[in-house]
């Protein structure tokens, strides 16, 4: 009987921990979504003047560019993937295409 109660309580603890983890991951993924959207907006504003979208001064863009090397590289990897949208879509579905 004692073993049964101990096992039940153990599973209850795991269950509560699981729920906590799920809530945490849910919150983090919502934050991550806002983060990536804000970063995309920021990069669009900063890089806009260099590609003909008038947002801020082009010199201001270049000044900020030196501090955004990592973000530019990240943007590159996303854009490079974006060149083959169909391939990306098919690979996301799995299997050989």
């Amino acid at each position, binding site marked *: 009987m004692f073993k049964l109660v101990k096992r039940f309580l153990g599973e209850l603890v795991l269950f509560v921990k699981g729920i906590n983890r799920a809530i945490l991951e849910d919150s983090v993924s919502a934050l*991550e979504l806002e983060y990536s959207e*804000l970063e995309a907006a920021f990069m669009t504003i900063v890089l806009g003047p260099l590609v003909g979208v008038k*947002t801020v*001064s*082009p*010199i201001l863009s270049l000044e900020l*560019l030196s501090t955004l*090397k990592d973000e*530019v590289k990240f943007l*590159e990897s996303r854009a490079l993937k974006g060149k083959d949208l169909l391939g990306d879509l098919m690979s996301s579905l799995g299997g050989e295409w």
Partner: protein
Amino acid sequence: MSSLAGLLSPLEGRPHVIIVLGKGGVGKTSTSILIASELKTQGKTLLVSFDQAKHILRYLNLRRSMEIVEIDDNLSACQLDIEASARELTSRYSDLVAELFPSLTVLNLEDVTKVLKYAPGVEEEVFLRWLADIYENREYSYVVIDTPPTGISLRTLVLPRLYLIWLDKLINIRERIVSLRYVISKTLGREVKVSDPALNKLYELKEVYSKVKDALSSASRTSYVIVTNPEPLPMFELREILNFLDSELMMKPKLLVMNKVLPRDVATKLGTYDEQARAIEEFKSIQYRSVMIPYANNPSSRLEDIVKLREFIVVVRG
């Protein structure tokens, strides 16, 4: 003989910057030289010309642009070359763009630095950067700035305000990005980076442009002199500049100068007497310190010729 420096006083702050504005060809360079040649008796003075007509090179016998040349003990002068400055500024970034080249090919940015010097706003940006440097330079007591024609000058003077609006928006977004990045990393137990170079750069730029904006709107750091001629268009621009100073910078001009006033007989002979009389009447009605300088028989081409004009200055409103 009247003293322009006397009419401009008090000139506080170090350096006190005197910005000479007006339509192209009204005599901004001559007026700037006249003012600088008087101020040098009161303290170390720098005369800077942003005007692309580069008249100052000839007047002061300067060999080339972009060099501060000592004219005499207390007076130095420099002709800025906006195109060369823009070229230098943009080429400074070409290495960076080349480094990021593989990334930027995706956005077709390879040629950006080659053509950037022609981009709208770059000329004003260069002018503004020089202005920021001038306000920081404590070597001179007075800096007299001979500006390019009205349009570009006024756009530049309002640029710090526009920059601060852009920077505030960018700072808001960046601060949110940094705080989200911190919360996500902390929650997931990742390494947390507290400092963000982009945010630091934005704060740094905000400080620079705030200082210039405050200095441009401070009577203790900056005096505005407007030069006009007794003709309809220069008078129209004078009114435009007065409105701009009042509405955008909340400033009043320290001195108005009506240059190239023709003698009555010459104006009558040329059939411009009535037009000139109307312009003078309007000029006299403006409630600021003002002077008139007659037309020089021989167009001024040397410093000595310009300094001689001082003998003919007539104070309209002291």
